């Protein structure tokens, strides 16, 4: 059994049932919060000493290579393990048709994902693992392993099955929401837009592939994994293996990017665990890049039917955002395309619906800003079309439809700086230089245009805990099963503790990514900083109470700075106040504030692009993002998060397209040469500007989610700029040159 380090000390728990107007981060005097402090884990990463999941060196480690199915739908007739058992170094071939995961699990679930792989439901489904003494030997045997399939008819082509969609159960957003009568409103309107936008399947393509090392110690499993949410991932893994939650520990200290693809456990974890149990040895399973594409998570393709209606003055009377998405048969998850549309704009008559089309393609699930990242393409491009029809500036159209309260519920926004962001962005970007008439600005072969789009991303708070230990030498450890997936969690959590406790950053040791530490929601949905950050806040608040008591002063009279407690005209080293050391735990829980206010981060994107008048190649020339996401905890890591999101937006608009062969369901472009992420040359100077904001309804640190705000709205700003540049309205992402060719000026 695993020994828990924290949990014995006092717990300071807070449920967000009322606003939290006062924050210790505003009264702390250490002066580290919000500052652009370098990542505390940076030196480890650049020197190669941050240990990632696949890098643990364990005695007796057996190397596993996963085997993917070579049919898109069928049934396994036989696996001829004997054919490869004699190959050099081969230890075993492990198949478990009942236990292996058919597909990855969605984030935050506490149950097992769909299991069982005798019946194959998509090309590349992981059906076996080959174990050998070296990776190369295992790989050779995996290639050679004969598997016989009974092939069946699969559904691979979205277009052929698009009418077979059904309304799935509600998820983070209602599957179907209607208000008023949109059809009537469209008929009565002065101006309408009725168009359909299409987005392709995408892959998170995190730099680090999915990887697990499984080690059994009697009946307890330790899994070194590349996971975003270890607390719930351990529960998923335990359920998948039929063991108690208490018998599974996940260690995920460093994660090389996740973007949603590592929210839930993926097939390699269970394959490694089953094989390790059978072999009685630690087993490593790292997905090859092609397997990451084949067998983890894709963002669903979408078809978005947009309807907008206004009066003569441009006031929205109707918003329709009716979407088709796809997933594996039997899976309920749908890309929540319309999630941002619910709260973006006013408009009395509304229809925001989703249908799910079953396809035999890789599981669809969360990828950076599920919902908004693609949904705002439909919404914000349609808004651009509407502005043009109205002869109105796109910013003005958004301003007059910026609602004072939630347009669907009679509750206020916790904070909302959409119009403020747009105005600031217009000023910084030089929006007044844009010519509303498309195709008017040309530099040599390049047609130049500008576009704008709003950014909306729902804010979430998730139950999370963190522990703080302060030792007599004045040093501290902050521990939580929270993760740092490259975002800066290590740094911002240390900053929060340092600010409140007055303990210098270099005296704080961060310990993340281990389920023996206080449970946390991990990194996902941009809730990580606010949730784990609040837990650290509450633990620090509790520690501060103890220090005040030890000093014999009221909390309000205590100042903590540079390792000293100051009060009552005394200055005492903090270490001298903790006796043999103190341990405290903080715990945050979401509460009724979520119902009493609508919480979201807001902002906007501006893009300037060049469209080559000969070839239709598009190059982004500059972009600006203006974001209001509550308190910025670290100006550098927050900016980096936004830069990453904006880069994702460039990819969504211009390059990323996960292509399946319509005949077989097989992924065609399953490597980084042909799945085109934006490269450095595609990403110009990006500017990020933050609007100063505090959200007292969100949590005690007054921060909202930021990581996914940067992608929401980024793509449509680029798309709208393309239209402004060349006058060709492409509604099918990504906008590759072939889609523009026919509309370009004659040679």
């Amino acid at each position, binding site marked *: 059994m695993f020994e828990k380090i924290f949990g014995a000390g006092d717990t300071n728990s807070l449920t967000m049932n009322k606003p939290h107007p006062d924050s210790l981060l505003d009264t702390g005097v250490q002066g580290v919060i919000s500052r652009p402090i370098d990542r505390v884990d940076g030196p480890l990463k650049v020197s190669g000493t941050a240990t990632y999941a696949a890098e643990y060196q364990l005695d007796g480690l057996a190397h596993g290579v996963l085997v993917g199915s070579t049919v898109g739908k069928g049934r396994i007739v036989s696996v001829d393990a004997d054919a490869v058992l004699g190959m050099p170094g081969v230890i075993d071939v492990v198949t478990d048709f009942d236990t292996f995961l058919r597909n990855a699990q969605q984030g935050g679930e506490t149950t097992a994902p769909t299991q069982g792989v005798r019946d194959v439901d998509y090309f590349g489904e992981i059906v076996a693992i080959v174990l050998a003494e070296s990776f190369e030997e295992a790989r050779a045997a995996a*290639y050679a392993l004969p598997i016989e399939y009974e092939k069946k008819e699969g559904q691979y082509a979205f277009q052929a099955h698009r009418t077979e969609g059904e309304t799935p159960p509600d998820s983070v957003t209602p599957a179907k929401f209607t208000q008023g009568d949109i059809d009537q409103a469209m008929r009565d309107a002065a101006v309408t837009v009725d168009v359909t936008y299409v987005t392709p399947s995408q892959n998170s393509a995190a730099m680090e592939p999915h990887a697990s090392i499984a080690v059994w110690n009697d009946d307890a499993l330790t899994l070194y994994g590349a996971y975003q949410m270890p607390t719930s991932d351990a529960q998923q893994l335990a359920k998948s293996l039929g063991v108690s939650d208490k018998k599974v520990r996940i260690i995920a200290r460093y994660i090389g990017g996740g973007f949603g693809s590592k929210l839930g456990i993926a097939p390699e974890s269970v394959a490694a665990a089953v094989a390790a149990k059978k072999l009685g040895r630690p087993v490593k399973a790292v997905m090859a890049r092609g397997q990451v594409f084949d067998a983890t998570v894709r963002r669903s393709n979408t078809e978005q039917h947009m309807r907008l209606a206004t009066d003569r003055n441009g006031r929205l009377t109707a918003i329709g955002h009716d979407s088709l998405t796809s997933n594996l048969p039997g899976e309920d998850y749908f890309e929540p395309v319309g999630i941002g549309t619910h709260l973006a704009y006013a408009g009395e008559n509304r229809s925001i619906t989703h249908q799910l089309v079953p396809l035999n393609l890789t599981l669809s699930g969360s990828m950076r800003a599920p919902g908004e990242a693609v949904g705002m393409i439909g919404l914000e491009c349609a808004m651009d079309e509407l502005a043009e029809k109205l002869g109105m500036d796109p910013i003005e159209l958004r301003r007059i439809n910026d609602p004072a309260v939630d347009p669907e519920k009679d509750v206020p926004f916790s904070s909302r700086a959409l119009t403020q962001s747009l105005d600031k962005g217009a000023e910084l970007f030089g929006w007044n230089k844009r010519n509303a008439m498309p195709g008017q600005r040309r530099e040599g072969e390049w047609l130049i245009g500008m576009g704008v789009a709003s950014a909306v991303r729902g804010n979430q708070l998730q139950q999370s805990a963190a522990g703080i230990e302060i030792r007599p030498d004045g040093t501290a450890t902050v521990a939580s099963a929270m993760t740092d997936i490259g975002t800066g969690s290590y740094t911002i959590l240390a900053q929060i503790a340092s600010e409140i406790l007055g303990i210098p950053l270099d005296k704080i040791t961060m310990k993340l990514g281990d389920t023996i530490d206080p449970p946390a929601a991990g990194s996902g949905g941009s809730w990580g900083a606010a949730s784990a950050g609040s837990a650290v806040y509450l633990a620090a608040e509790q520690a501060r109470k103890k220090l005040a008591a030890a000093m014999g002063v009221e909390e309000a009279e205590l100042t903590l700075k540079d390792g000293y407690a100051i009060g009552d005209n005394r200055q005492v080293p903090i270490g001298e106040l903790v006796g043999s050391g103190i341990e405290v735990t903080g715990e945050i829980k979401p509460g009724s504030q979520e119902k009493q206010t609508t919480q979201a981060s807001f902002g906007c994107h501006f893009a300037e692009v060049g469209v080559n008048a000969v*070839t239709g190649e598009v190059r982004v020339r500059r972009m600006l993002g203006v974001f209001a996401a509550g308190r910025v905890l670290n100006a550098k890591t927050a900016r980096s998060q936004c830069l990453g999101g904006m880069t994702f937006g460039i990819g969504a608009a211009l390059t990323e397209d996960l292509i399946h062969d319509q005949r077989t369901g097989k992924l065609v472009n*399953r490597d980084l040469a042909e799945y085109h992420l934006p490269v450095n040359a595609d990403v110009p100077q990006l500017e990020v500007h933050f609007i100063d904001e505090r959200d007292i309804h969100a949590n005690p640190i007054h921060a909202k989610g930021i990581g996914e705000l940067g992608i929401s709205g980024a793509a449509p700003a680029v798309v709208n700029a393309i239209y402004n540049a060349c006058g060709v309205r492409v509604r099918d992402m990504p906008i590759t040159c072939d889609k523009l060719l026919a509309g370009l000026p004659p*040679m």
Partner: protein
Amino acid sequence: MKLFTYERADSAQAAATDAAAAGAKFIAGGTNLLDLMKLQVETPTKLVDISRLPLDKIEERDDGGLTIGALVPNSDLAADARVIERYEVLSRALLAGASGQLRNKASTGGNLLQRTRCYYFYDTATACNKREPGSGCSAIGGFNRILAVLGTSEHCIATHPSDMAVAMRALDATIVTQKADGDRRRIAIGDFYRLPGDTPHIENVLEAGELITGVELPAPVEAARHLYRKVRDRASYAFALVSVAGVVAMDGDTVKSASLAFGGLGPMPWRNPAVEAAIVGKPVTTASFEAAADALLADARGYGSNDFKIPLARRTLIASLRELTGTN
């Protein structure tokens, strides 16, 4: 593990002899071969390492041309002052390809022999006549955005992915080889590659063990403009959808000489004398440029997702000719 033997050759002749055995492959930079071996698309039983042979020089020739050793890295070739001055098209083509790290490692000879980037060639779970003769072509009827519209056959529609080779085709390069039997030969680049026909796995005229030792560039065309224009799906690190390598000399308003080669369109760096004939000796007009495009694309055939390459090639050629003739 797929076992292979490894030998380090100490002379070009020895390398050729060693590599004449069935299943043998040369390895230099390994930027293409090693990837393909990991995927078991290539499964050599013997690797002959030529990377230490003294073939890494760029040398002047008496006729005013250059001889480029087969092991000259792409980065060095692109940065060579003589290449930049006399064969700008080559330097530009090299820099349009791959990434800095790959160019540091990739060799001149290896670049000529790059395998196609056809999605299906790369994936052993699919049929491919080039990888496994007789198994069928998955790209025909499948997704073929980056594949060929010229020179294809019912057995293969792969493109040759090199940028460098397209420039060399425009420069009338000659490939110098060492054969296993001790002979050496010089092969005009126009004779070097083969169309797929019904043997798409045979991509060039090299015999078993025959080693490329260098590439000769003839004396540069005097007072010519050079251009390498590459159209691609992202600004770097993407293969050409269409590329044009051009060297054009003018006599007043008349095209005095032109050599034009194309990437991304065919199974080999593509060159068609009729394209050049459409403009040489004629005054510069849009009509003559359109005639050149007509000549290039007369036999072009799209396969669905690559249909756009035909109008794209037309537009790119016309724009390239405008730039090459100074009639922008």
